[in-house]
């Protein structure tokens, strides 16, 4: 098995570095990068490219009192005292960006049952993309489905496998129009994922009513 599926594509990382992605994808990427030094290094290299762009962008005329106005802003709200380093790794499973979005860790999530023991919680739903947490009981298979746009899944707890590969904590799977898969949680531990989609999923299983709650998120 290749590990390429387990990291975010250059396309998405560069889009995140540029600040051009839908909010839903920003959350998944920020959470994944919190768990992967490899992706953090790749992200920071795309930010370096942003720095090079800034160097070449040319200049705009400033207001005459620009510097004085900036110094006035600084005096109005002076530099805070150096904050202590954040506590190293808390006991929860949510990295900071996800914790901020949920307002706590796993125990703060307001799950909604969607059948077969599966639960979900929609965190943000914009007109271009949405992001949700999904809880799949150990050993449970999700309905087979394809995708109308891009689906980005980050594993936070447990693991799942599909036709492509196996994904564990910190891993990302990016499924596009060509992917048709049946994710199945590993036996042993319930699987919790953070999923961003930029278009509703297309379910082609035999249980449309059970699948219904997943559609239109």
């Amino acid at each position, binding site marked *: 098995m290749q590990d390429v599926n387990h990291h975010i594509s250059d396309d*998405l990382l560069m889009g995140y570095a540029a*600040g051009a992605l839908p909010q839903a994808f920003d959350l998944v990427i920020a959470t994944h990068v919190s768990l992967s030094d490899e992706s953090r290094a790749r992200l920071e290299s795309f930010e370096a490219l942003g720095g*090079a762009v800034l*160097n070449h962008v040319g200049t705009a005329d*400033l207001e005459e009192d620009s510097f004085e106005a900036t110094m006035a802003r600084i005096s109005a*709200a002076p530099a805070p005292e150096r904050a202590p380093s954040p506590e190293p790794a808390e006991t929860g499973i949510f990295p900071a960006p996800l914790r901020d979005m949920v307002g706590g860790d796993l125990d703060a999530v307001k799950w909604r049952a969607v059948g077969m023991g599966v639960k979900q919680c929609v965190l943000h739903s914009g007109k271009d993309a949405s992001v949700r947490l999904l809880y799949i009981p150990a050993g449970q298979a999700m309905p087979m489905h394809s995708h109308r746009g891009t689906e980005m899944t980050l594993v936070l707890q447990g693991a799942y496998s599909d036709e492509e590969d196996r994904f564990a904590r910190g891993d990302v799977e990016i499924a596009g129009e060509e992917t048709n898969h049946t994710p199945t949680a590993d036996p042993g531990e319930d699987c919790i994922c953070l999923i961003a989609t930029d278009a509703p999923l297309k379910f082609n299983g035999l249980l449309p009513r059970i699948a219904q709650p997943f559609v239109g998120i």
Partner: protein
Amino acid sequence: TIVQNSEEHWVALVQAIATAHDQTAFAELFRHFAPKVKAFLIKSGADAGLAEECMQDVMATLWRKAHMYDPSRASVATWIFTVARNRKIDLLRKYARPEPEDLPWGPEQAPDQADVLALQQESHRLAEAMKTLPEKQRILIERAYFGDLTHSEIAAETGLPLGTIKSRIRLALDRLRHNMT
């Protein structure tokens, strides 16, 4: 100290702000970067008034957060780019963008000088490579960072030395993690 290239000079200025609240250092950074930040914001879709406001915010943030800057992982231009990008998202798209978790072994651990030197030199090479890029490719990259292009459109190889920067950052991260354990 001997200044090798402009990247290292900017690092010294930010460090002077962090350690000594040096206003002369800040004025020099401002003269160089403020007009660039404003131009970047205008090309990203802000009108001149909003760009001026936003630029002043960005520059004030640099003063306040100078002690958070890690020169073993980013050039000063890169750091300013990230601050400007986030402020732009706040103002133009009206939401606070989620950022990756801060590294808990963060900026209080003084970065390794060899890491700083290497990263700043790689950044210098990237800046030089950007200058020699064919006009068409450079414009594509710039438009992607101004936010008016999908990134698949620039998947084309540019030959920029991004991989070496990535390795440098990876090394710095590894060293930081190692120092903690």
